[in-house]
């Protein structure tokens, strides 16, 4: 495992401020003064889907595989985009509207690599990390279907390079 990466699967909420600082300190430890760009993505629960309002989501995962798959992805991003650091956190369990779901961060010498890496992490996470989302409203709930646009986004990275 590289020294400049982290990947977490957790029930609890996370602090984007603390994660950003952690990423920056990992990047500094790896290459002080070598980071010119940090890009972060934070995903939040929206209060609607294509059918109407929802109350929140429930995230199921594959304990034992999820952590490994997320860490593998972060390490792939570091290697592919020559990052100085990268990290990802994904929550599981029941999350209500407007709560934080996921955070990814990438630090790099130049901005395009940081943008591409953060985008890659999100696109590939939606393809290779064993997490499944159910949307609920009151007592009713429904599994989220994969989106063709998400498959296309991931395929783009798999086809290039």
């Amino acid at each position, binding site marked *: 495992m590289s020294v400049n990466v982290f990947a977490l699967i957790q029930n609890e909420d996370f602090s984007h401020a603390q994660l950003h600082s952690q990423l920056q300190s990992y990047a500094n430890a790896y290459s002080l003064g070598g980071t010119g760009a940090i890009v972060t993505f934070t995903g939040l629960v929206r209060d609607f889907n294509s059918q109407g309002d929802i109350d929140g989501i429930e995230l199921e995962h594959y304990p034992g595989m999820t952590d490994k798959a997320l860490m593998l992805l972060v390490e792939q991003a570091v290697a592919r985009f020559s990052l100085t650091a990268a990290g990802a956190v994904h929550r599981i369990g029941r999350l209500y509207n407007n709560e934080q779901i996921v955070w990814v961060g990438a630090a790099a010498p130049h901005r395009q690599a940081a943008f591409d890496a953060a985008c890659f992490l999100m696109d590939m996470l939606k393809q290779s990390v064993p997490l499944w*989302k159910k949307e609920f409203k009151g007592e009713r709930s429904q599994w989220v*279907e994969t989106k063709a646009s998400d498959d296309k986004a991931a395929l783009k990275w798999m086809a290039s390079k």
Partner: protein
Amino acid sequence: MHITVKTFAQTRELSGEDNISLDLEPDATIDTVIKHLTARGSHWELALSGSILSARNHQLCDKQTVLNDGDEVAFFPPVTGG
């Protein structure tokens, strides 16, 4: 040889089982496991139909992957995290 099968999300709900022990012939593959499970009834056929994904020992794998004694195999629908 002996393997464990896990299921998740819709696959778990449709099959009604999420932790199964199977005794298989040597050189069994993911496909062999699918045949064993679908023989259990139409709920398993439904659970394993469509674009189902498989993993062996926590790594995504295809249907031709050869299994070893003690492997953990999992079946689940396309992922929807993020």
